[in-house]
């Protein structure tokens, strides 16, 4: 059994295309996820991962991501457009698919959009909160605290340096011999002012005084920059902040003026505070946070925009995924439905070999399996039905053939009186055409006389209650009279319900005619034998009486002679009559040979044309009449009889007799018609016309047509009589055409 899902070529192409599309979408989604992950990783990992081509790579990745999203959008939109197209064209399953997709989109769209809007609002609120004035102010204040701490430390260092410088200048401690005093002063100030480091640099002195905390002994401050030195020796105070070790060193540098010349700088004092790493780190954190905050403030709008874009893409992905899932799910349902619809259509068209090729383990699979099983069962049933029909058809054909070839005419009529079958013999016998009467009620078809006759017969059948009737009836059809043996049988089904009736006709016309002819011949022979013998003595006796007593009776002799003459004449008439009967009874044996029918007929017609010039004899010869097996003498006798009858029927006024010869190739007969426009024959007489001693002529013996019939029967033909239109009679005899002709 072939398994067809749809047109095979299209099916394979479509399946391949769908598979390809599915793979593309899966790969696209996967790539989008991968790209997003990579981009995120790179953002987190920093550019260190991508030293040179970082920008290009990021740019490329983002662009690829955008292309992939566009591709995904294209595929989804393409499917949606296809769905709309299918829906407009009323393709099976499109409505369900639309509904499912709409449901999925709605289900995903509403929460997604809602979430998107809420997220955007929330995000905007959060971002605005991040960059709120309070936070900014707090950060600025914190930074300012750090700045002030630095600044105050520097100012304090400078202040202590200035005090020390003033003491040195005032007391002239810059002189070499007071070095110990200077050192003691510096140490005391270092201690009392809680400085971390104090340095005194005096020009022209070998050693500088440097006092520092023990814990910072390893810290070596950088020398002043040239510009710093320049400033100091120009008499300006300055503060510096520099990174030393892991901490910051805040220095206040103040010049030392000469006591003798107050504007002359002879050295400088440096008072330093050292901020250890822990403190510096904390300040750095403040600084960095503040910096980042400021920078982020600059990027407030782009950040917001970036988040919105990201959320929007996520929203799109969710919606598209839902749409795609809807399409996918709908396809899983509608494709089998489409296949089922297609299969139903194919099966409706009669293709019971169609099977749906879908393997699924769900309810759809069960449905498809049931459908396939149903198709198989249907096919099996159809095959059985076809076989039964075939058998039935064969039987019907056989019955019809029998019916067609049976010599009896058979007509069947159903329960409603509608004619259902007519066989060929009935057609021929009744001179009807099947297509004109078939499927019509018999009452409509019959002429009133026949309808009445049928009614009588049926009534009689019902009265008898035997379910059938056999009756011989004489009927006059349109152009001839027939004797028919009609058998009507009521048909009942197995349950006894009346289904109509079968009418069987047997044409007894010829048979009856032959029987009658034979009977009459026997009568004629007996008559000839029984009557002829006494006639001669009667005649002879009458002649003898006349001869012996005719002259003796005197006056009565006249009466006597008249009477004897009458006896003699009438006996002569009787003799002639008996001779006629004798001839009828002893017709010469017919010797058949091939002869030209027209020639034979022509001879007879010429004979009459010459003798009866007042009558028009019109001989219409058939052109294609073959030679027939006939006895020319006998046929001439037939023609003489027929023409004699026709002439007699004319009554002598405006007479016209047409003689026609015809060939009926189909029926393989040759016809001779003798038509007159005379007085015609009453319908009731037509049956009896061929019986002996039936004559409408006063002088006729009534044997003419009986002889005609006898001769034609000997020629294996038949004679019939019909009315001529508008008046007169047509006598037709048919002769068979030999097979070789």
């Amino acid at each position, binding site marked *: 059994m072939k398994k067809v899902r749809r047109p095979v070529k299209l099916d394979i192409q479509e399946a391949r295309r769908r598979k390809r599309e599915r793979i593309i979408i899966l790969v696209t989604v996967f790539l989008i996820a991968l790209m997003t992950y990579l981009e995120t990783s790179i953002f987190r990992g920093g550019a260190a991962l991508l030293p040179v081509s970082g*920008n290009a790579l990021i740019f490329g990745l983002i662009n690829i991501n955008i292309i992939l999203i566009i591709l995904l959008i294209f595929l989804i939109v393409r499917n949606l457009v296809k769905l709309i197209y299918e829906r407009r064209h009323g393709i099976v399953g499109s409505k369900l698919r639309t509904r499912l997709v709409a449901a999925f989109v709605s289900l995903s769209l509403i929460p997604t959009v809602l979430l998107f809007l809420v997220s955007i609002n929330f995000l905007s609120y959060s971002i605005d909160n991040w960059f709120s004035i309070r936070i900014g102010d707090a950060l600025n204040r914190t930074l300012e605290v750090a*700045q002030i701490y630095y600044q105050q430390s520097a100012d304090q260092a400078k202040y202590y340096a200035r005090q020390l410088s003033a003491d040195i200048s005032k007391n002239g401690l810059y002189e070499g011999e007071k070095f110990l005093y200077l050192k003691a002063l510096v140490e005391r100030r270092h201690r009392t002012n809680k400085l971390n480091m104090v340095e005194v640099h005096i020009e022209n002195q070998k050693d500088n005084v440097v006092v520092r905390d023990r814990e910072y002994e390893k810290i070596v401050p950088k020398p002043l920059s040239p510009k710093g030195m320049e400033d100091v020796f120009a008499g300006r105070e300055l503060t510096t902040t520099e990174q030393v070790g892991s901490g910051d060193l805040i220095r206040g540098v103040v010049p030392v003026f000469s006591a003798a010349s107050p504007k002359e700088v002879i050295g400088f004092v440096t008072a330093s505070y050292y901020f250890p790493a822990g403190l510096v780190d904390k300040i*750095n954190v403040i600084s960095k946070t503040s*910096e980042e905050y400021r920078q982020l403030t600059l990027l407030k709008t782009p950040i917001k925009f970036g988040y919105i874009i990201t959320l929007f893409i996520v929203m799109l992905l969710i919606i598209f995924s839902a749409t795609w899932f809807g399409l996918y799910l709908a396809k899983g349902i509608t494709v089998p439905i489409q296949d089922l619809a297609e299969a139903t259509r194919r099966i409706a068209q009669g293709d019971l070999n169609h099977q749906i090729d879908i393997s699924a383990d769900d309810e759809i699979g069960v449905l498809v399996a049931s459908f396939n099983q149903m198709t198989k069962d249907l096919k099996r049933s159809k095959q059985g039905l076809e076989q039964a029909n075939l058998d039935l058809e064969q039987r019907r054909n056989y019955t019809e053939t029998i019916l067609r070839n049976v010599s009896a005419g058979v007509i069947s009529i159903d329960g409603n009186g509608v004619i259902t079958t007519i066989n060929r013999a009935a057609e021929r016998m009744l001179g009807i055409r099947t297509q004109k009467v078939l499927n019509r009620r018999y009452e409509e078809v019959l002429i009133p006389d026949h309808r009445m006759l049928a009614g009588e017969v049926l009534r009689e059948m019902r009265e008898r209650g035997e379910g059938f009737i056999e009756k011989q009836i004489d009927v006059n059809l349109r152009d001839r009279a027939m004797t028919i043996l009609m058998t009507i049988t009521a048909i009942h089904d197995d349950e006894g319900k009346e289904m109509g009736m079968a009418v069987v006709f047997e044409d007894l016309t010829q048979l009856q005619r032959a029987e009658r002819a034979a009977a009459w011949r026997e009568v004629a022979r007996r008559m000839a034998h029984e009557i002829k013998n006494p006639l001669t003595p009667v005649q002879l006796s009458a002649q003898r009486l006349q001869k012996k007593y005719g002259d003796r009776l005197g006056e009565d002799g006249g009466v006597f002679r008249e009477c004897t003459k009458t006896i003699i004449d009438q006996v002569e008439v009787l003799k002639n009559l008996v001779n006629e009967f004798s001839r009828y009874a002893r017709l010469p044996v017919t010797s058949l040979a091939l002869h030209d029918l027209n020639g034979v007929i022509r001879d007879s017609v010429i004979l009459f044309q010459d003798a009866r010039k007042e009558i028009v004899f019109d001989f219409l010869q058939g052109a294609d009449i073959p030679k027939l097996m006939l006895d020319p003498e006998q046929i001439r006798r037939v023609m003489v009889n027929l023409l004699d009858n026709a002439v007699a029927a004319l009554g002598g006024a405006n007479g016209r007799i047409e003689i026609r010869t015809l060939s009926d190739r189909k029926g393989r007969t040759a016809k001779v018609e003798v038509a007159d426009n005379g007085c015609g024959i009453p319908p009731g007489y037509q049956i009896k016309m061929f019986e002996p001693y039936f004559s409408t002529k006063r002088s006729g013996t009534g044997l003419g047509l009986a002889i005609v019939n006898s001769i034609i029967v000997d020629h294996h033909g038949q004679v019939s009589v019909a009315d001529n239109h508008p008046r007169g009679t047509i006598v037709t005899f048919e002769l068979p055409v030999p097979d070789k002709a």
Partner: protein
Amino acid sequence: MVRDLMVTNNASHLLVYARVTNCFTKGIEAAILAGVPTTFTFILELFQERSGWLDKKLIRTTLRHTIKYDNVKKLFQVSADGEKEATAFPDFESAKRSMADLNGVPLVPLNALKKNAHYYVRSKVKLDKVRLPLHLEYLFFFASLWDFETDWHREGFAY
């Protein structure tokens, strides 16, 4: 744009002086003050002129000036390639001047130049990708807020 491109020499090297003007837009200044480290890259190229043929590029040098504002100490730290220590400026103007100026950059040893040959130095300056916190510069690649790049400026000389 690059202005005052001047080529001279000392005893051993060819020296280049240059100054960039209009390079500090308001956006860049705001970014610098917000603590964003900002780097100018100076590109210097020395060509030997050749008649009837493409000029020959003898050397290409890039120098980077980076400015970073220390908001605690209120100092602008300007560092250049090749310098160990950043120079701190308490005021922004000095720092900007330091960023925009090239002062006697030794481009090529004199012995690499041919006598009586014609040369030209061309220069341009571009702003490096601004480093944003959280590496947002990669996310906002499309928002070229502070990008700029000058045209080439050319100065010819004969040796």
